[in-house]
């Protein structure tokens, strides 16, 4: 007790004396990132939240039918789109785990969508779907003599196409991740189950899935967080149209920004936070171990 008192009574030594040289270096080396973080994360986020402080913004947002539609679209995108994607990825990871030379070659090609930038390929799909000149309707006309549908003019179809583009782009990545998880499973387990006469479903149910379920769920959640920020798939394919019916939250925020309604843009993002933050918290607990 006496010691602690005397320690706190004594004038504290200057900061440089209390820190060892490596610690001073440590702070100096951490400083560049801290500066970036303060200037381009803390300040913008704080400023954004300050802009979104008025309840009136939320009332206006609530009364904007485009916002409600965008929220529903985002949910469809995440809940349906991501789960379809992850199920296909889980299935294909089993396919790519097969040891065949041609499957190894195919896996090299399969990664292309992930390796090339998304803009040219999204625009390529957009042209394919063009009602008059796109290759799909050209082929429909050639074989049936009928005009094909105006694909991107129907909000439901247009959103489905945007989800398709998203899946096309990110399926290889998740398949690859799940494949590494699958390859980590000991081969002995499968051999033992072969001896026991297990069929493919029993092998999946009792060997593959138990070892992969944590990874699978982590990947699904991570993909959901990232997909919330997928601006390109929707913006470059449909531009939010027809009639602003295919917006998702990320394109809507940018739409408000372009219309100079910054407080609405921030409010729409704040509205997504109750959904985003638990996912982020969960992922951080996972990754910071």
């Amino acid at each position, binding site marked *: 007790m006496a010691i602690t008192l005397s320690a706190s009574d004594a004038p504290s030594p200057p900061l440089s004396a209390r820190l060892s040289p490596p610690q001073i270096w440590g702070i100096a080396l951490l400083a560049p990132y801290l500066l970036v973080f303060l200037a381009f994360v803390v300040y*913008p986020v704080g400023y954004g939240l300050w802009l979104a402080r008025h309840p009136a913004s939320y009332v206006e947002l609530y009364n904007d039918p485009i916002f409600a539609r965008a929220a529903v679209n985002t949910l469809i995108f995440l809940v349906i789109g991501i789960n379809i994607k992850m199920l296909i990825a889980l299935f294909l990871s089993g396919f790519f785990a097969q040891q065949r030379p041609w499957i190894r070659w195919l896996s090299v090609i399969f990664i292309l969508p992930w390796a090339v930038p998304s803009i040219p390929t999204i625009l390529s799909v957009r042209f394919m779907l063009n009602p008059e000149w796109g290759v799909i309707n050209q082929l429909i006309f050639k074989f049936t003599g009928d005009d094909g549908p105006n694909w991107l003019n129907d909000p439901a179809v247009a959103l489905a196409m945007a989800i398709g583009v998203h899946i096309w782009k990110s399926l290889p990545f998740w398949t690859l991740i799940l494949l590494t998880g699958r390859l980590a499973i000991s081969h002995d387990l499968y051999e033992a189950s072969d001896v026991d006469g297990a069929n493919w479903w029993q092998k999946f149910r009792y060997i593959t899935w138990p070892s992969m379920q944590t990874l699978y769920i*982590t990947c699904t959640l991570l993909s959901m967080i990232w997909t919330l920020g997928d601006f390109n798939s929707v913006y470059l394919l449909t531009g939010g149209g027809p009639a602003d019916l295919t917006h998702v939250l*990320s394109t809507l925020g940018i739409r408000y920004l372009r219309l100079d309604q910054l407080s609405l843009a921030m409010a729409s993002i704040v509205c997504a936070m109750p959904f985003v933050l638990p996912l982020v918290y969960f992922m951080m607990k996972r990754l910071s171990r």
Partner: protein
Amino acid sequence: MKLPTLREVGTEAKLLLIGIPVFIWTMIPIYHMFVFAISPKEDAFTGKLWPTHPTLHNFSIVFHQQHYFLRDFWIQFWNSTVIALAVGALTLFVATAAAFSISRLRVPGGRAVMNMALFTYFIPAAFLAVPMYRTMGTYGLLNTHWSLILAMVTIAAPYAIWVLKQASDKLPVELDEAATMDGATTLQLFRLVYVPLMMPSLVAVGTYAILLAWNEYLYAFLLLSKDTDITLPVALGNFLAADDSPWELLMTTGFIYALPPAAVYYAFKRYMVGGLTAGAVKS
């Protein structure tokens, strides 16, 4: 040679039944782009699987900037290159220093910084774009390349730090102790021990940052506007503004734009896959 059994043929057929659709699905948008790029203007819209008269004329038009939409092609290509390389270099600098400080020097508060960085990594980039745009205006950086470079460093750094920290946590502590015992200063430890040992991860992180910056559309489109300032993806997006866009030229430009990152990706695939999966599988 042993003839395959009926059962083996059946398995192979089932695998092909999956493999062929996967191949077609993967290739369609890329092949479509490629066919457009090598088709003469009149051929491009006939819906043929292979043009009757394949040509490289479109590439020549792009390289000689012989179209209204392409008059700044080379300067935009240059912009994309400079910005991507600057983001790569700056991210490497910022992230290596931070990872060394957190993982090796165990600086007080390092763990908190790591968590803040991870938090940034999980905030969708499109959400951060809105306040970031306004902030860049406040800083007076809007419409300069610095705005895009700094924004991309902000986005690339968290993952970079995390990957580097994971990798450097695996280096034995005895290494640092031995070097210090031999009288190495902290800076020497960083330069002569840490950086050489971390090379594979540094390559992965640098490539990651360069590709991220080269491929970025949203931030580039928000932060830059002048035709001679923008990067290639923004120029591609601008093609859409007109109804009479020359699709074959757009697809050609897109093809040229997509080649460097694809080449880099395949060249560094070894590092990329290692770095990426190390992150995702650890669960």
